[in-house]
């Protein structure tokens, strides 16, 4: 039997993974077997968390809007604000409301006055 080295196939596959692991810690960015495992886990987390990201941000916006409505006495709570927004068919999404609450709280009053006067 002649000696048949396996060539560069496996090496190419592994160097492809290495680029994703370039900012990992310790052996996880140096050793091939660990790179394969950790990059796989990283991809799984990334995929799962892309769905979670949408949930998490909506949660954050809702918490911020809730706090803002209570601090600025706009409506007594987030639930009442959203209920009134929907009743008057004002399509402001939560992301915008949260940014308004943080950056320009006076505009919250504008929004609530608008809600109260539309009828």
């Amino acid at each position: 039997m002649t000696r048949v080295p396996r060539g560069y196939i496996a090496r190419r596959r592994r160097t492809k993974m290495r680029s994703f692991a370039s900012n990992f810690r310790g052996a996880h960015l140096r050793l091939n077997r660990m790179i394969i495992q950790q990059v796989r886990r990283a991809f799984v987390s990334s995929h799962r968390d892309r769905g979670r990201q949408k949930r998490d941000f909506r949660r954050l916006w809702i918490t911020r809007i809730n706090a803002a409505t209570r601090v600025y006495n706009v409506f007594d709570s987030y639930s009442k604000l959203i209920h009134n927004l929907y009743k008057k068919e004002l399509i402001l999404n939560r992301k915008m409301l949260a940014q308004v609450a943080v950056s320009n709280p006076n505009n919250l009053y504008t929004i609530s006055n608008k809600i109260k006067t539309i009828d």
Partner: protein
Amino acid sequence: MATAVAASASLSSSFAPRNHHRRLARPVTRRAAPVGLAVRCEQSDKQKRKPLAALVPREERFMFEGDELCGPDIWNTTWYPKAADHVTTAKTWYVVDATDKILGRLASTIAVHIRGKNEPTYTPSVDMGAFVVVVSSSQHTIVNAEKVAVSGKKRTQKLYRRHSGRPGGMKEETFDQLQKRIPERIIEHAVRGMLPKGRLGRRLFTHLKVYKGAEHPHEAQKPVPLPIRDKRIQKTD
């Protein structure tokens, strides 16, 4: 340049020991990533940092006020606090009197304020909350007694447990006994259970200051009375 170096290196290598000049002989081309997978981070970062003016067509620019066009984009990225937004020396200090207040309801309000959930700048990963000082102005003759209240028979039946780690090392004591021994621990235990567990939670816990008696050493921070919205927090009877 590279070929000249290689040529001179190969010439000298024939007269010198092989291993020494091996590295010079081959010009090494370094690639950050293999050809097929260009790393795209730089592109998307630039896109994120573009001001709104670059994205808004000229006809619609009137819709935006002066600052929004040239400054950072506040409408497409959720606000995240900068270091200047949570300077410890600029935080609010609250003071609460725990006398005759129901333990759990008080702890809940305290935890909310320490965590910063009552403010529109709330961020779960950043300490945006306030400091809370808990005192008890005792009007009873019992000296140094924290006068936090509990309903029902909890005073004699609520157990505080701890374990020393060794077999048979569980120790328990009732609310009453703990209140006589170390009254601060009751409120600390309650609030710690309501704060997030983790590195940030432990740091938030250090923002709670509990003292038995009516005095506290934080007069210099000018603490404000803690706003309590819970109507059933005061013990009636």
